[in-house]
């Protein structure tokens, strides 16, 4: 059975080449961006940079980290991601644990939550309600409205359901309360699952850019994602704060590339941890047998 035909060999070679090409296609745009951010002005502007920096310089990064608005938005991004993730995890672990049990009204509660996934108030009503709650120009708008997510709740609930019931029953008979069971049995046993969901929420919070644009009247209060949106998409160059001397040495393009790259960097850094777990998480949550 070990002999392989010539056509099979050809197929394997073509297939491997094709898949490697596709994989590189996913990486090379980021490499290009990184190379541009490290290149000199003339090389970058003429479009000569491909995947290796030309006239290597760190000037774009130096300049970026001297920009107070950039630093400020970076701090806001870290704060909102931290707080947002903690609050989300609190909400969905508590509710997820409760809903993994059978009790009266569970089905109705489930539908109550699932409906939020299927239907919503839409842009303007949501905006008006959040403004009425005093969330306009308020840091909490980054944290509160998006904290609850039914999708993540279902993910966590399914993780909890996969833990053998007998463990909990034994603890309950010994007189432990539901709270103790959650803390001492469920949380430690589903560490991997919780880590996956937490990382997903972190990435989502870090990447979220629309809230800042919608609710903040001063661009100073933007998180990094909104800050980048303004620079990259709306082409607002004020925030680049290029003074004449540095403008001679580097271009708008290299600075933009540096900032976009820094914006993606935290994602690239947590990605290895994320990847370790998320395959299992996706399959368990999205596809319940």
């Amino acid at each position, binding site marked *: 059975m070990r002999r392989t035909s010539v056509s*099979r060999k050809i*197929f*394997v070679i073509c*297939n*491997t080449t094709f*898949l490697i090409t*596709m*994989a*590189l296609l996913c990486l090379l*745009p980021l490499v290009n*961006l990184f190379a541009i951010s490290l290149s000199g002005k003339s090389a970058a*502007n003429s*479009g000569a940079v491909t995947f290796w920096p030309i006239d290597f310089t760190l000037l774009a990064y130096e300049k970026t980290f001297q920009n107070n608005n950039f630093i400020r938005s970076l701090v806001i991004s870290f704060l909102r991601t931290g707080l947002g993730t903690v609050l989300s995890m*609190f909400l969905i672990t*508590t*509710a997820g644990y*409760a*809903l993994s049990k059978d*009790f*009266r009204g569970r089905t109705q509660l*489930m539908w109550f939550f*699932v409906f*939020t996934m*299927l*239907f*919503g*108030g*839409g*842009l*303007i*009503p*949501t905006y*008006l*309600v959040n403004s009425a709650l005093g969330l306009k120009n308020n840091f909490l708008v980054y944290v*509160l409205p*998006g*904290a*609850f997510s039914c999708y993540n*709740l279902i993910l966590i609930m399914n993780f909890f359901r996969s833990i053998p019931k007998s463990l909990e029953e034994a603890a309950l008979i010994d007189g432990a309360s*539901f709270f103790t069971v*959650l803390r001492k049995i469920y949380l430690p046993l589903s560490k991997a699952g919780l880590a996956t969901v937490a990382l997903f929420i972190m990435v989502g919070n870090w*990447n979220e*850019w629309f809230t800042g644009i919608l609710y903040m009247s001063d661009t100073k209060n933007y998180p990094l994602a909104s800050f*980048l*949106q303004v620079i*990259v*998409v709306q082409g607002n160059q004020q925030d680049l704060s290029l003074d004449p001397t540095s403008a001679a040495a580097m271009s708008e*393009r290299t600075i933009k*590339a540096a900032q*976009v790259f820094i*914006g*993606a960097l935290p*994602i*690239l850094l947590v990605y290895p941890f*994320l990847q370790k777990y998320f*395959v299992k998480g*996706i*399959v368990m949550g999205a*596809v*319940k047998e």
Partner: protein
Amino acid sequence: MKTEKNRERTKRAARTARVDWRKEFQHNWPLYLLVLPSVIFAIIFCYIPMGGLMMAFQNYKPWLGIFGSEFVGLENFRQIFEFKESYQAIINTLIISVSKIVLGLVVPVIMALLLNEVKQLGLKKCIQTLVYLPHFLSWVTVAGMLRDILGMDGIVNACLKALGMEPIFFLGEAGMFRQLVILSDLWKGFGFGMIVYLAAISNIDQNLYEAAEMDGANKWQQTLYITLPGIMPMIIVMATLSLGNVLNAGFDQIFNLYSPLTYSTGDIIDTYVYRQSLVNGQYSFGTAVGLFKSGIGLLLTAVAYKLAYKFAGYRIF
């Protein structure tokens, strides 16, 4: 007399139900307490805004508020199909989303089948790591890269120039915009879409392949008659569930890529709602368009879940 007895019976049933609830609560109150924070968040940030959808039936004026504005019935909805712009936005949404859905189903299945043929585990792992990555980048980042790569001095135009062709301003060409949106979405999502199929493939019983090999089936036949049928339930689930996305053409993506030059082919319902309500101040009309979209979306999702349950036994919870 009979009705009297019936009434007595219902009363007693109600009383026992009440006692049941009390017992239930005495025993399970921690569970109710644990769900409470999420219930409060869902009410405040999901359900109360739904009440605001009333605006869609009004001529909403911010200074009159939602209780003081004039009621106009279905007038706003009638206008959706009267304005050329909103009509065009619906058409664009359908074209873009249906293309995305079809490619988003077919390409990941093919890629998963191809990747399954790679037998070197290290290489397979490397490829997986790289193709999942774009899913986690934000559309702002991707738009930033695309704008650079496809810009007049970008790497793509540099290639065109090297080949002696005229450079093209890709993001300003209305005729290319949809293709660009569909392809960049495919680039971002195809890897991540593979995950569920790879998992389904790994769940297929290995004995089937051995048996097929004994019977003289070649690799291609094994793929066609074992692997593909093996992952068919998953394909059906994914296909039916994607029905709920027919009106979601991707706000984040298009908002960061389009411009007035490409409104004619690239403006979708969500971006149109954004411009009409927040830029032009037509709150009620914008809300009506949004409600039109989410109403149909709800209907489609409900049908999708029903179909997924019927054909593949899939349940949300």
